C-alpha cells in the first residue's frame, strides 16, 4: 500500500491551488454569489491554462478538490462545462464524439446532464419525459427536467428520457440517453434562482415541447439509458466527493487560520482544549473523507470502479463538508458570518443532495453488501 501522492501530482496541486487563490478574487467570489451569475471569464482561463485535461483523471480530481477548497461556486463553474462528457466518451458514436465531445473537452461547448425531474430525483427510473418513435428515423420528445446544472448556458444536454412505455415491474427498462441541443425547436430553459449556495453555478429547468430528436442523437443503445446513468454516477459521485473534501478542507483552513491569528493577537483560544478538540475532530474527518475519496478514485481510474467504495466516499465526504463548515462557524462565531466561510457554509449542503442524496448512497452501499453476504452464506450452507 502506498498512500503518498506522486511529486508530479503534488506539483499540479500547487499549481491549481495557486490559480484558485489568484483568480478567485474576493471581488469575484462576492459578485457571482450575490448576482447568481456564471463566471464564464474564469472558465475560459481554466481551459486556457490547461488545468482541465480529461485524459488525466487524477488531475481532474485534484482540480475539483482545490478549486472547491477556495470557492465552490467559482470552482465548480469553471469545470462543470464538461458535465456528463464521460457518457459520450464511453458510448457516443464517432459522429457524436466529433460534433460534441471534442468541443466539450476543449471548452468550446458547454455540456449538461439532464436526469432529474420535478417528481423524480433520487428515484431515477421514476422520470416521465417521454420520447415517441416517429418511425422516420426521428423521435418526438416531451416533458421537462429540473435542477439541471448549466441549464440555461449549456449547448447540449445528455438527457435521460423514457423511450418505451413504462413497465411497472421493470421501471428501469425502456430508458434512453439522448443529446438535446439548446437550439432545437421546442426546447426551452428557465434559470432557477435563489439557490442557498453554489450560486455562481448555473441551474435551470428544461422543457421539451415536441422536440424532434434525430436517431443520430441517441447515445449508445436504445433502452440502456438507466444503466449509463448508474455507470456515470460511479464517476460523478467521486467528483462530488472531491468537491466535498475541498469544502471541508476549506473550512479547516479557516479554523486553523483563525486560531493562529488569535494566538498572535494574544487571545488564548488556541490554548483552550475545546479548540484543540474541535481541530482534531474536524481534521480527522477530513483526512478520512479524503482517503475514502482517493480510494474510490483509484479503483475507478484503474477501470475497476466499486459502487460501494464510491457511495461510501460520496456520502461520507458530503457529510464531512457540512459538518466541517458548521464546526468552523461555531468556532469563528460572529467573526465567521462576514467572511467567505459564510458562503462555504451555504455551499457545503448541496454535496449531500446532488448526484444522489446521502440516503441513496446508503441504500446503494447496503444493498450490495447484503447481497454479497447472502451469497456468501448460501455458498457455505
Amino acid at each position, binding site marked *: 500500500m502506498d498512500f503518498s501522492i506522486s511529486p508530479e501530482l503534488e506539483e499540479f496541486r500547487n499549481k491549481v491551488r495557486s490559480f484558485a487563490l489568484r483568480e478567485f478574487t474576493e471581488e469575484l467570489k462576492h459578485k457571482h454569489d450575490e448576482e447568481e451569475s456564471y463566471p464564464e471569464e474564469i472558465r475560459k482561463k481554466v481551459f486556457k491554462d490547461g488545468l482541465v485535461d480529461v485524459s488525466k483523471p487524477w488531475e481532474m480530481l485534484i482540480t475539483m478538490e482545490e478549486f472547491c477548497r477556495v470557492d465552490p461556486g467559482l470552482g465548480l463553474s469553471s469545470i462543470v462545462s464538461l458535465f456528463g462528457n464521460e457518457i459520450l466518451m464511453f458510448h457516443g458514436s464517432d459522429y457524436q464524439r466529433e460534433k460534441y465531445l471534442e468541443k466539450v473537452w476543449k471548452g468550446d461547448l458547454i455540456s449538461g446532464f439532464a436526469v432529474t425531474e420535478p417528481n423524480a430525483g433520487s428515484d431515477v427510473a421514476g422520470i416521465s419525459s417521454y420520447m415517441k418513435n416517429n418511425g422516420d428515423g426521428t423521435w418526438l420528445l416531451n416533458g421537462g427536467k429540473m435542477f439541471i446544472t448549466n441549464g440555461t448556458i449549456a449547448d447540449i444536454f445528455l438527457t435521460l428520457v423514457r423511450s418505451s412505455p413504462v413497465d411497472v415491474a421493470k421501471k428501469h427498462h425502456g430508458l434512453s440517453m439522448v443529446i438535446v441541443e439548446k437550439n432545437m425547436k421546442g426546447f426551452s430553459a428557465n434559470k432557477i434562482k*435563489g439557490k442557498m449556495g453554489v450560486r455562481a453555478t448555473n441551474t435551470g429547468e428544461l422543457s421539451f415541447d415536441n422536440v424532434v430528436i434525430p436517431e443520430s442523437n441517441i447515445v449508445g443503445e436504445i433502452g440502456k439509458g438507466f444503466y449509463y446513468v448508474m455507470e456515470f454516477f460511479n464517476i460523478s459521485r467521486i467528483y462530488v466527493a472531491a468537491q466535498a473534501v475541498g469544502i471541508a478542507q476549506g473550512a479547516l483552513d479557516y479554523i486553523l487560520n483563525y486560531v493562529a491569528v488569535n494566538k498572535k493577537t494574544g487571545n488564548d483560544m488556541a490554548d483552550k482544549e475545546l479548540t484543540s478538540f474541535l481541530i482534531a475532530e474536524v481534521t480527522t474527518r477530513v483526512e478520512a473523507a479524503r482517503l475514502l475519496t482517493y480510494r474510490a478514485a483509484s479503483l475507478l481510474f484503474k477501470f475497476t470502479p466499486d459502487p460501494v467504495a464510491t457511495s461510501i466516499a460520496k456520502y461520507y465526504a458530503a457529510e464531512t463538508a457540512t459538518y466541517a463548515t458548521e464546526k468552523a462557524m461555531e468556532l469563528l462565531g*460572529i467573526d465567521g*458570518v462576514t467572511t467567505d466561510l459564510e458562503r462555504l*457554509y451555504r455551499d457545503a*449542503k448541496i454535496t449531500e443532495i446532488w448526484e444522489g*442524496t446521502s*440516503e441513496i448512497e446508503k441504500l446503494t452501499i447496503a444493498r450490495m453488501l447484503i447481497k454479497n453476504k447472502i451469497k456468501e452464506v448460501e455458498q457455505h450452507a
Partner: protein
Amino acid sequence: MLNEELRFLKQTIYDFSTKEIAPKALNIEENGIDSDIIFRMVEMGFMGAVAPTEYDGSALDNAGYAVLLEEIAKNSPSLAFYLMIQNSFVIMPILKYGSEEQKRIVIHEIAKGEASGTLIYSDILDTVDDQILTIKDGKISGTKNYVMNSSGKYFILNTNEDGKNRLLLIKSGGSKGKEHAKLGFRGISFSPVSFDTTAGLSDYIGTGDGKKLLSEIIDNSAIAMSAIALGMSESVISKAIEYSKVRYAFGYPLADFQPLAFAMSETYGELNIMRNELYRIATSPLDLQDALTIKHNLIELAKKSSKLAIQIHGGYGYLEDFGIEKFYRDSMFLSVLSGNRVAELTAISNMIFGAEVAKI
C-alpha cells in the same frame, strides 16, 4: 402545559402569524421589514410586548412573550428576532437600568413604531475583527463591525472611558457602513457602524461595568432566544413531515421510509420535550442555569431540524422560494448571535459543578 390564557394568546398569535406574516415572509427576507408590517406589529402590541402599559406596552409576561416569539418565528425568524431586539435588547434594559426619561421617550417610540433600537454586544463575543468604542471628552469614537438592526435610531452600547466600561444609550449618531453579506435573518439590517459623536439622550444606562451589563442583558434574553429557536424547529420539521407525506420516491411517500420517518419523529419528540421545559422555565421564577441550558439545547435542535428538513426536501430544500433553507441559515446565525457560547457553557458548568471549572 400552557394555562388557558396562554393557550388563547397562542391561538391568536398563531392565526395572525399564519394569515398576515406567512404570506409576507419571503418579502421580508428580500426587502426587509416594511412599514406595513411595523404598523401591524404596533396595532397588535408586539413592538412593546414586554413594556408596561404605562409606556404603551402590552405587559406580556415571560411565557406570553415566549409564545409571541415562537409563533412569529414559525413564519419569519427575521421578524421574531427583530421583535426580540426591541423587547429583550432595548426595552428590557431600559426598564431595568434606564431613567424615567429614557423610558418615557424610547420605549414609547418603539412601542408606537416610531423608532427602533438595537444593542451592540460584540464586546462580549470573542472576536478578533472588532474594536472597543472609546469615550474621550464626551465624544464616542470607533467602529463596531457587527451591528444588527444597524439602521435603527437608538443604540445601547458599551464604551470604554479611562479604562472603565460603561453602558450608554444613544440616539443614532453613528454612520452605517456597507451591509454585510447576510448568513441569516436577512430581513434585518446588519452592518458596521462608525461612531464619531457626542453621546445623545441621557446617555449612561446602569451603573455597573458595561461588559457585565451586556452579559446580563444577553442572559436575560435566553428564554426569548429559546422561543425563537423553538418556533423555527417546529415550523421546519412540520413542513418536512407534511412534505414527506406527499412527495413520492420509488412509488412510496417519503414518510414510508423508516430512517426518514424516524429521524423526523425523533426530532419532533425532542421538540415536545424542550417545549414543555421552556414553558416550565418561563412560568417559574428565573433560573439562569435552566434558561441557558434550554437555550443551548433549542438552538442545537433548530440547527438539526433545519438540516434534516433540507435533506427531506432534496433539491427543493436548497431553494429560497421553498422557505426551508432560510431556517438552516437562520439557525446558525441565531447560534452565533445568541451570546458567547464558551462563556455560557462555562457558567453552566460552574453552576453544575459547584466550583469554578472549565478554565483550560
